[in-house]
Structure formats: structure tokens, C-alpha cells
């Protein structure tokens, strides 16, 4: 299997896209660190699903915005598994995608932006700092950061959320530049609207229909649609790609 013996750390993987990514890696033989912050039961369910799928998994609780907790997570992973091959920074600050009740720019406070920056950027920054010594020692590794296609096409202007994801792409490109000479790759996956997830549950049918109408593939992404490109960027198949953003939205964004 493609990921036999590989250790894959996925933040926020007790549910939604993260859980789908974890299970998909496990199906290719990987061992998954299922990170979660609140829902231990859901995380354990993902762990057993991973084992059923043919991989191994272990759930570790950690708030990705806490440097201390992230360090503990990385330490524990290394203690049990001795290495980390792939990191998927998937966790983000809870955000409700509700086009009808979104805040307009003049309603937003800086703290809204700050919260999203913390959720998307600070958490990724913290994880990268914590995991880097282990990756540098092996001069290999793949970091994948989850962005959004809203960055290229803000169909609905979720200012704070999308600005933070934009920053994440800039962050990733700089990191790719720095880590390339050390053999470590950094890329982004930018999904479109993914349904169903907890975050997208409130998205109205009308909006979905509008997106579908403009999407060449004529449907909305499921969590499983996102896993393929993530695994591609984690694998040797993409060994000469770094600093890239793959849009996974059925062709809504083309660039």
C-alpha cells in the first residue's frame, strides 16, 4: 500500500474533512494521529474506522492554538512512533458559513479577524514549529495546509475566514521556500464548499444550487473528494511539488 509504515498527523480529524482524510490514509496502510480538541468519542470512532480500513491510529487531544499542547502532541507521537512523515494542518476555528446571516464588513471587529488568524495561521505556525525538528532530522517530510477556494473566488465574502486562509497560502509559500533545501515540502489544498460537514450544515440549498450551477462538475464536494489531492501531495508522486495550492472544487476556480 502507498502509505505503509508512514506516520500521518492530521489536526482536527475527529470529524468532517479531517476524519475523511484520516480514514483515506489508513486505507493505504498509514498510521494516523487523530488529533481532536473536544469530542473524544468521535475521535475514537475515527481511530477504529482507521484500523478497520487497514491502517493504525491513535487519538491525541490537543488544542492547536496552544503551543504547549501541540508540543506535547508531537512529543507523544515521536515517543510512540519515532518519526512523522506527513502533517495535515486541517483544524480551524469553528466558523458558520451562513450566507444570509454573515457579518458585513462594517459589522466586523478586528477580533473577528484575529480569531480566524489564530485558528488558521497561528495553529499552523505552531504545529510547523513543533514538528520541524523531527522533519529536519530526516531531511524529508510533507506538510499540507488546508485552505479554501474562497481565497481565489470569494463567492460569499466571509471576510475574516477567507483573509486568514489567504494568509495561510502566503505562509505556506514562504515556508516551502525555506524548507525546500532541507527536503521538506509544503503545499495547500483549497477545497470549495464541502457538504455535509458541521460547518456547512447551515448553507442554504439556494446557495448550493447557485454553486452547482457554476461548477463544471455539476455537484458539491463531499469530504471524500478532498482526500485524493491531500494524499497525492503527501506521497512521492508529488515529490517535485512544493509551494502549490491545489483547488478541489469541481473546477469552480481555475488557476
Amino acid at each position, binding site marked *: 500500500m502507498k502509505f505503509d509504515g508512514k506516520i500521518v498527523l492530521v489536526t482536527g480529524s475527529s470529524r468532517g474533512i479531517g476524519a475523511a482524510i484520516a480514514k483515506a490514509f489508513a486505507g493505504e496502510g498509514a498510521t494516523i494521529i487523530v488529533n481532536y480538541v473536544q469530542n473524544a468519542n468521535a475521535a475514537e470512532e475515527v481511530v477504529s474506522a482507521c484500523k478497520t480500513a487497514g491502517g493504525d491510529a491513535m487519538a491525541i487531544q490537543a488544542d492547536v492554538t496552544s503551543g504547549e499542547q501541540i508540543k506535547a502532541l508531537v512529543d507523544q507521537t515521536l515517543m510512540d512512533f519515532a518519526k512523522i512523515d506527513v502533517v495535515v494542518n486541517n483544524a480551524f476555528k469553528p466558523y458558520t458559513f451562513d450566507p444570509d446571516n454573515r457579518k458585513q464588513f462594517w459589522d466586523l471587529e478586528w477580533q473577528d479577524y484575529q480569531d480566524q488568524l489564530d485558528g488558521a495561521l497561528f495553529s499552523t505556525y505552531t504545529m510547523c514549529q513543533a514538528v520541524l525538528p523531527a522533519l529536519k*532530522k*530526516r*531531511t524529508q517530510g510533507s506538510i499540507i495546509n488546508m485552505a479554501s477556494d474562497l481565497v481565489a473566488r470569494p463567492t460569499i465574502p466571509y471576510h475574516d475566514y477567507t483573509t486568514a486562509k489567504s494568509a495561510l497560502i502566503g505562509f505556506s509559500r514562504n515556508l516551502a521556500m525555506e524548507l525546500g533545501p*532541507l*527536503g521538506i515540502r509544503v503545499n495547500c489544498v483549497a477545497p470549495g464548499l464541502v457538504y455535509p460537514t458541521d460547518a456547512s450544515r447551515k448553507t442554504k440549498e439556494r446557495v448550493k444550487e447557485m454553486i452547482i450551477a457554476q461548477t463544471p462538475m455539476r455537484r458539491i464536494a463531499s469530504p471524500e473528494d478532498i482526500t485524493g489531492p491531500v494524499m497525492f501531495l503527501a506521497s512521492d508522486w508529488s515529490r517535485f511539488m512544493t509551494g502549490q495550492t491545489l483547488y478541489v472544487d469541481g473546477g469552480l476556480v481555475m488557476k
Partner: protein
Amino acid sequence: MVLKAGYLPGIDDDAVEWQTLTYDRDGHAIEVSVPLLSNEQMQDLSERIKEASRQHLKSMTVSDITATIDAAIARLLDRNDTYRQQAEEYLPLITGYDAEMIRLGLTGYLKTFRQSELRRFIAEDFGNPKILDEFQPLPKGGYGKAYGPDLLAHIWAGNVPGIPLWSLISGLLVKAGNIGKVPSAEPLMASWFARIIAETDPMLGQCLAVVWWKGGDVDREQALLNQADLVVAYGNNDTLHQIRDRTPITTRCLTYSHKVSFGMVSKAALDTGKAWDVAHQVAYDIVRYDQQGCYSPHVFFVEQGGAVTPQEFAQYIANELDCFEEKFPRRTLTIEEASGVAAWRQSEEMKSFSEENASVMGDAGGAWSVAYSEAEEDLAPSGLNRTAKVIAVKQLDDVPARIAPYRAFLQTVGIAAAPEELHRLAEMLGAVGVTRISALEHMTAPEAGWHHDGRFNLLDLVTMTEVERSAETAAEAFSDYVD
């Protein structure tokens, strides 16, 4: 496909016993037949070469000789020439080295034997090159002329393509007759060169021969040693010891033993802009001919205090080696070579358990390894075949004292440092026995006219005949114009 090695002027191929060497790398088997002379044939050949050397070579001018060599080298540089094409096709199969590495390596190497470079080479050792052609006035008074031996015997070793050309060309430049013994590891290049010389100038072609015997065939070796006026031998200490012991006492024997070379990187080279580039140069020196050369680096002393730490620099090197594996893949190792690498890796791993920050980078099954240490480690060879050690040091000035005990094994040091550091270090390194200092990325490509192991390649081959001033003065008394 059977290729023929060796070059035996004046001896009929059918009169000689031929043996077949088989090279089987990655499924491409190739056979080379090599001539095995009887002791009588060796004696006969020696006398023939000596005679041709006396009759023909000694009367040529150095300019004539360099022109012939230049023409021969030009053919080896010409990618449309059949010899060049054979070299590009077969040397990779015989040695296992990557074809592209050999192609680029040959060109870079052969360029150092063009006429202009040869003249520089001679000027390095003889202030006045005409001293090889005729008696020249000496600064101390009187006249002198340098004579090469009638028969210079070369005993070559190793598989780095083309290495034998160094001493063979040196021999020709001082007008020596030459018989060279090629190693089984790479018997072709010297043979081809000899044939091109013969094709270029048939008379000069009578003055050199290329022979073979199986390493350790004491009997055959003795037959050549007995005939030679001067011996140049390459190999490990045991081999050289035996050759020297068997060389007649009246015959000089110049030996070139195995060496260890290393690199030094100053913190001045370790800023975030330049460190990557330096790591690339370091990796190139490691990759070239898989560290089989005496100038190949085993260890890099890297100074702390730069923006890029020695440890990060070691990681840069690791990644560069990984990249080079795509460009110039390492040759397939024999089980013995793999054991050597494994033993080195394992011992480095063991050290890393008791030593803070020490580590070994690279997969055990991969084509390269980089070990890193911050301990006060001494110089030691790596496991060869793209294995290197990075040792962090407080300051480069401390390094010469650490390597001083290994004087007998030192050769090249590749340095990345600021000018004043370079000159200060050169002074210290020279004092402990280092004979060559180069830039990184140039360690494995010595410049034309370099002094191999610090010796005078050409001067060492000649004897001077001096006409002292007293003879001149005394002769005056016997002139018919004396008053």
C-alpha cells in the same frame, strides 16, 4: 562485445597470451581482453622501449612532444572521435560510475592536458623548460640539462577513469620511455591514449607500452621492476611496501599512497544567502566518483556562529546529496562495499546514542549518508561511496592541531572562507602536512600542473647533468685560441 586493452609496440598480438576480464554491472556484461606477457616478452619490450626512447624521444623537443600530446588529447575531447565515443560508452559499464558524470568528468579532466596547460605544467617545475632540450646556463654558474629515464615503469591502481594519464604524460614530457601496468578495475583509458599517441606520431608510439597482470602477480611485476630506471607506483601501503622492497636498490621508486581529504566551512560562508550554495558545492565533491579519489572529502569541519548552524548545514548537504542522486546516481555497490558503508553507518549511529545532537541522516538503504557531530572528533575516513561526516567546531583555527597526527595521510582541503581566513588557515594547514588547498566543488578536479601529494611531478622524474664552472674554466686553457 570484447574490447581489447593494452598496447604493445613491436610485439605481435598472436605472440602474446590474452586473458579476459568480465564486468557485469546491472545486467550489462562486457568483456575486455588483456595481454599477459611472459618474463622474456617483458624484457624484450623493455629493451625495445628503452632503445626507442634513446633513439627518438630524447632527440625530440619538448614543444614537439606537447604538440603530439595536445593532438591526442584533442581527439579524446572530440565527441565525434571513435575513441571518445568508446570511452563514453564503455567506461560507465566497466567502472559503474554514472555515464553523465564520466562524460563531464572526462572533459574537465582532459582539458588540463591541452598544450597551453602542458606548458604551464612544465613551467611549474622547470623555470626554464629548454633545460629538457639542451644545456642551459644555471644561476649558480655552469650549465645543466635535465634527463628523463630511459624506462619509467608505472604501476597504476583504481577505477577512477583516466587517472593513469597523469603519470604517463608526465613521463612523456621529460622524454622517458614508459611502460604502464593498468589495473583490472579500469584497463582501457591508458591503452586508448597510448594507441592515439601512436596514431598521431608513430615514432613516439614506439616509446610507450601498456601492459597488464593480475594484481599480486609478483613474478610479472618483478620482471618490469628489474628493467625500469625509475618506478612510479600507486596503491595502498601494503602494496607499495612490497613494490618498494622488490625494486632494485639502484632504481628510484616513487610511491603515491592512499590519502584522506576533507573540507572546511567558515561561518563567513554560512549566512542564509550563501549556505545553500556552499552545501551544493560540498555535495558535488562527495558525489564525484563516489569518493574514490585521494582528493575526495570524507569529513567537513563546519564553524559555529553563522546564521546557518553546522547542523542545518549538514541537513542542507543531505538534501543536496539526495538531489544529486537524481542527476548522477551512485553506482551499484558490491556486497563488500555495502558492508563498508554499513559498518561506518552503524558505528556513527552508535556514537549518536551517547552524544547530544549527534545524528546520522539518510535512509540505511539509500544512496548517501551524512553523519553529524559536535564532539571533538578526530579525522577519520568515511564509509566511502557518498558517506560524509560534518563536525561542528568552535573555530576553524582549531582544526589544524586536530589533524596534525595524520600528516602522512593528508592531501586536499577544500575551503570556503574569507580571504584573510583562507591565508591564515593555509599557513597552518601546510605546516601539518596538507599539500593542496582548493575551493569547494573543485576538490576532485586539481588544476593543471598541480603538485600531486606536494611533490614535483616532473622534477622528481629527471636527473640533472651539470657542467660546473670549473670545467668551463679549465676548458678555456685547452682552447686553440688560448693566449
